[in-house]
């Protein structure tokens, strides 16, 4: 497989704290990958290692076919999570400077900066100082700074934070545009909706370890909620009673959008749905307005994974804290035990 980024057996610790532990990751060229994980999972550390801003204690990272990002910095665009602008610099001068640093020649840098400012509706602000811009405007300027040199690989860390819905939409369009231009894009985010909308591949890390690395469709399949949503035309409580009696049904919950019918692991969702429709169509029931197999959202997968692992980890965490206090424990082994 042709990988834009390939991470193998990478580990990075800061003092006692293991930020990334034995991480393996392949990012196919031309893909748009969402990189998710709870706060402190090691996302930014991983990205910084990919950028060769910090270096792994162990393991190997190849970026765009080179042994390190050092040799291909000008072909990578990076929007860090901790990002800023020179407050006293003029917007166009700042963009030109960054473009120059990324190897764009002076004439082209000025032209591209002007084009991009036009594209994101900031052309009027080119001569203003960066500090005079709103936070959303600064975000857009920083995004331009990361793509102005037309990189092959684009790494965006928390690109949606601090943007209003209109600018989020603009940002989605810009990212999609870059994707269609054939660039490999990795973006880390807490915005699950955006990730779901944009990504064709998701990887998630938790406690420095990879927990998901798959195309979105595969994730939906793997984390199928085994839930059917039925919206009866008649009263909910009567329908609830009927649904609960169907074979293969484990639990029925009433929600505003309908009844959430959980089916047993060995039951066939198709036949349960057919049964439900026929039962609810018989009088005195008044029929079914809508019935569907619930599509699990990325957010639910995320929360499930974090909380489930959190429960498993709870006991171990206490042990870990105690042993760190005693100064003898290796956090890695505790996490490893927890995940096994």
């Amino acid at each position, binding site marked *: 497989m042709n990988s834009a980024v390939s991470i193998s057996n990478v580990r990075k610790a800061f003092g006692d704290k293991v930020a990334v532990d034995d991480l393996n990751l392949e990012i196919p060229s031309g893909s748009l990958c969402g990189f998710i994980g709870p706060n402190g999972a090691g996302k930014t550390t991983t990205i*910084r290692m990919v950028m060769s801003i910090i270096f792994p204690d162990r393991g190997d990272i190849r970026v765009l076919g080179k042994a390190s990002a050092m040799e291909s910095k000008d072909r990578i665009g990076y929007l860090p999570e901790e990002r800023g602008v020179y407050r006293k610099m003029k917007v166009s001068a700042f963009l030109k400077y960054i473009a*120059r640093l990324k190897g764009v020649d002076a004439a082209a840098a000025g032209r591209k900066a002007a084009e991009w400012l036009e594209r994101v509706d900031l052309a009027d602000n080119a001569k203003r100082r960066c500090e005079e811009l709103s936070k959303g405007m600064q975000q857009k300027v920083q995004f331009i700074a990361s793509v102005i040199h037309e990189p092959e690989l684009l790494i965006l860390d928390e690109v949606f934070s601090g943007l209003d819905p209109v600018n989020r939409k603009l940002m989605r369009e810009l990212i999609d545009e870059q994707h269609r231009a054939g660039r490999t894009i990795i973006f880390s985010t807490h915005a699950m909706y955006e990730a779901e909308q944009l990504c064709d591949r998701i990887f998630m890390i938790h406690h420095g370890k990879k927990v998901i690395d798959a195309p979105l469709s595969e994730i939906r399949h793997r984390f199928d909620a085994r839930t059917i949503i039925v919206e009866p035309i008649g009263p909910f409580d009567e329908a609830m009673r009927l649904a609960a009696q169907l074979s293969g049904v484990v639990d029925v919950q009433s929600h505003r959008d309908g009844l959430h019918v959980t089916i047993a692991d060995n039951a066939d969702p198709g036949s349960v749905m057919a049964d439900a429709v026929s039962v609810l169509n018989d009088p005195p029931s008044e029929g079914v307005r809508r019935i569907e197999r619930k599509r699990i959202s990325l957010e639910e997968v995320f929360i499930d994974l974090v909380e489930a692992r959190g429960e498993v980890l709870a006991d171990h965490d206490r042990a870990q804290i105690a042993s760190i206090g005693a100064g003898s424990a290796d956090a890695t082994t505790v996490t490893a035990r927890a995940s096994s």
Partner: protein
Amino acid sequence: MIRKMFDVAVREFSATVLTKAFLIGVFLPPLLMIGAVMLIPALMNQKPPKTQGRVAIIDQSGVTMEGIRAELSPERMNATRDERREQAKKIVSESAPGIVPQAQMDTAMDQALSQALGDGPSLTVESLAADADIDAAKAEIPTTRSKRDLEGTDPRLALVVVPARAVRSATPETEDLAASGGERPTNTGQSPGTFESFELFSAPTLDIEVRRVIERAVERSIIDARIAAAGLNAASIRALISTPDSKSVTVTKSGERQTSEVAAMLVPGAFMLLLWISVFTAGQSLLTSTIEEKGSRVMEVLLSAVSPLELMTGKILGQMAVGLLILAIYGGVGVVSLIALAMGEYINPMNLVYLAIYFLIAFMLIACLMSAVGSAVSDLREAQALMGPIMIVLIIPMMLWMPIMRNPNSGFAVACSFLPPISPFVMVLRLGGSEPVPFWQIPASIALGLACVVVALWATAKVFRIGVLMYGKPPTFRTLLSWVRMA
């Protein structure tokens, strides 16, 4: 790699230099100096207005009137002024002999002094009767505060009352003699007894300078009258109690040479100060720009394009250009003004070359410290804690100025010349001095300095690489050292 460092350096330089604060801070002091040099003569050209008027004398002693009249005569007053001018010239040329060629200085000083002294007052002495009413005489002195009101009139500016006792002391025997109108004693071995003082009433507009002229004239005539009353010759006594001014000469190996304390201290000190200001200004702005990049979180954006080493080197080079600019501006103004004052001989051209080399060493060492601190802290307040010790180190050369200049080749001075980071400052100080520095010490201290620069750059690169992305707990010097050991 080189091009990126150059881009960083250019931005660093222009972002520092093209700010109002920098332009004001760097260009204003020399401009003020030049302004002052041009403005002071203009101000001095405004001579004090000529004082014209009468000085009334009530001479109760009966023997001082002619003396006062002579002292206040125009001829006498011009002579006094010439005398004072000569004295002033002598003082200046003795404090810095040989700095300025004598002839050139004479004309310059003459101009300056005649401007400062102005035209002498033109006073006419008005003799009042010995028994005249003092209050009535006082009433004639105009009390107006504006000199303009007195223009064109011939006002009574002052009233001097010389009592009889001012000349003849209150000892009983002279009292008797005066009373009996008998002969004055030709020789008095005994104490002259107590004298009374004279009284001077003056107009509020009277210049202090003119007042002093009148006071001196009256004093001199009273003393002359006393000497005459004692049967002695005033002129011969004056000749007896004065000596010509002494001359100070230093004996050295190369022969006698006139001492120039001022130049010997000031020129090397100025060299060191020049080095200090340029190194410190550039170092300070390196610190603030690094902190700004970290504080505004632009750092990681930059690190996506350049490596920490490239960034650090570029920043140091940019600020070095800033330091060199300051050095060139201040040094240039200094050298040009010394040459303009015909003091060019006090600058050895080789010393300017050494100044540039030692600037390089001093700046690099300070820049390393500043980069390390700037990269490690999150804001200026945190930097202050780490800057304390660095500032103390930087102040040391200032405190060593006097001891080293007094004894430039002492063991202590030589030791300080090999003690980074103060060694460049000490060397510049010693090289500028009049006592020659043993030649081997120059290449040796340069070699040591460059070696230290290499080590400092190596250590700073490590601190910088870790520090720039580190936020949170303010670091201590121990943390910085552990970062040096870490990678």
